[in-house]
């Protein structure tokens, strides 16, 4: 059939990724945790755990609980802060050759901008993902992510603070995520990513206490995939910048579902816990599908969902 190997590379703003598979924030440590088991260069990229300016302790255990086809977490953004990250982790990460996206947090617009500035001066940061959607901390994050004005302001401020590609990460806990994608685009974002976790609650019926110490937490995993695919579709329709889709991806089929729905690239979180060797399987499945369907470039598949009636 004369089909050559499909072109898996994707473009996210000025950033070119080798393929559309990105390890999601909070599910891949600082990357180094997985450097001994997989070659990080085979990923499109990875996103670090969320970083504030300073160190954070996170919530006390229990921090996770399994739910049907999913899990709730309230880690509370435990992290080493941006300076220790730059000094203690980044040099080692650079050696792996990984494409490194840093997930940044803030309790104020200024902190977001400050973190962005610090990282812009460091070597080896490919892009910034703006966590304005973590349901697990009271101050910061979600307060910007659940209000259109807040989203616009944070993205604008970070846009001024950095030349790096910026990717606001949107919450699914709103009526209309697409309007937040639009606000992000208007404020100068290079792409948006979604979904962060769904605010959720599990109760231990014997103790009548929440199953995790923080009370509520964020739901991730295959359970949420159908909602995440819907939101990815809606956002991709609403904006011209690339949309990075995620939520419950656990197989090449799922990757393809998001791409067809409109995602230019995808992130994988929870499934990496279940199978840290999933990446080569996803890549193989993706390549196989494109080859079988004679699709030359993964980009040609993006957003091709056909909503005409059967």
């Amino acid at each position, binding site marked *: 059939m004369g089909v050559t190997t499909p072109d898996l590379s994707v473009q996210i703003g000025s950033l070119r990724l080798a393929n559309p598979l990105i390890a999601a924030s909070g599910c891949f*440590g600082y990357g180094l945790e997985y450097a*001994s*088991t997989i070659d990080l260069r085979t990923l499109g990229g990875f996103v670090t755990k969320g970083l504030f300016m300073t160190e954070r302790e996170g919530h*006390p*255990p229990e921090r996770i609980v399994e739910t049907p086809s999913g899990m709730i*977490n309230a880690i509370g953004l435990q992290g080493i802060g941006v300076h220790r990250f730059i000094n203690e982790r980044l040099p080692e990460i650079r050696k792996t050759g990984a494409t490194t996206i840093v997930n940044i947090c803030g309790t104020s617009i200024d902190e977001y901008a400050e973190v962005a500035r610090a990282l812009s001066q460091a070597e080896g940061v490919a892009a910034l993902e703006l966590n304005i959607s973590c349901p697990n901390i009271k101050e910061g994050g979600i307060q910007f992510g659940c209000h259109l004005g807040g989203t616009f302001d944070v993205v604008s401020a970070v846009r001024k603070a950095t030349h790096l590609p910026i990717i606001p990460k949107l919450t699914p806990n709103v009526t209309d995520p697409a309007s937040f994608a639009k606000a992000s685009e208007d404020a100068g974002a290079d792409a948006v990513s979604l979904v962060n976790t769904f605010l959720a609650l599990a109760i231990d019926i014997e103790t009548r206490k929440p199953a995790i110490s923080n009370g509520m937490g964020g739901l991730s995993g295959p359970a949420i995939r159908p909602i995440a695919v819907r939101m990815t579709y809606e956002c991709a329709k609403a904006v011209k910048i690339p949309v990075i889709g995620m939520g419950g991806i656990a197989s090449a089929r799922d990757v393809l579902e998001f791409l067809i729905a409109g995602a230019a690239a995808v992130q994988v979180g929870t499934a990496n816990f279940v199978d840290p060797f999933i990446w080569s399987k996803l890549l193989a499945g993706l390549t196989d599908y494109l080859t079988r369907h004679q699709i030359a470039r993964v980009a040609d598949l993006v957003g091709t969902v056909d909503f005409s009636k059967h």
Partner: protein
Amino acid sequence: MPVDIRARVLSNAHLSPDYNVLSLAAPEIAATCQPGQFVMVKPGRGTDPLLRRPFSVFEVLRDTAGVPTGITILSKRIGVTTNLLHQAAEGDLIDCLGPLGQPFALVDPPAEAWMVAGGVGLAPFATVLEALNAKGTPATLFYGARSAADLFYLDWFRDRGARLALATEDGSVGDKGRITIPLERELTAATGKAVTLYACGPEPMLEAVSNLATRYGRRCEVSVERIMGCGMGGCYSCVVPLKDGKGGHHFVRSCINGPVFDGAEIVWE
């Protein structure tokens, strides 16, 4: 470096209505695992259950030439995964990621090693004893459980030269009460001997053993049990509060920095 093996079940021995020992064909894991390390296990396909669960490597299986061929897991039924492990049949396939975590640091003779196990906390000590025997380090197993029927593998440990000190809550065997009763008695008596403690079991037991060790000036390594989402350092669910030297604590991931910690480092809650 951990590997992921779709391990075949070689046998499933039911020790009691709740305890079973599962033998798994996993030469690559058996070949490199060290005493105190664990595996992340997923029985069955699909998303129910979704996440893997951590289990200590109980025994290392070897062929007649001594080549490692697999591992066993000592499992106690408490929920969905342990139920599936209890029901597993020969030939079933179980995903097994490992070996993971930091092993015990075992002492050399003439120092003695005292293993302290509570319930299913026995699991790491079979491989520990084999390693101690290889060194020639004298070994004692303090082993407590609800009652005599919940004490397993006593002959196994005896046959391999471990001295046993038992306790049961109902007094059916050994001391009546907690394992700390014989442990404290022997700590009191053992002045002059070099002794290191290795403990695994419920957290209140670990705390008690660790406090005893401190009181008697002994080093005590404990293997903690936290809910683990990944076993690889990815999720930050499994943290343990370690002393930060300033009267506070910092959270450390027990899957990669543990599960074995110096008991004196832990902030017991």
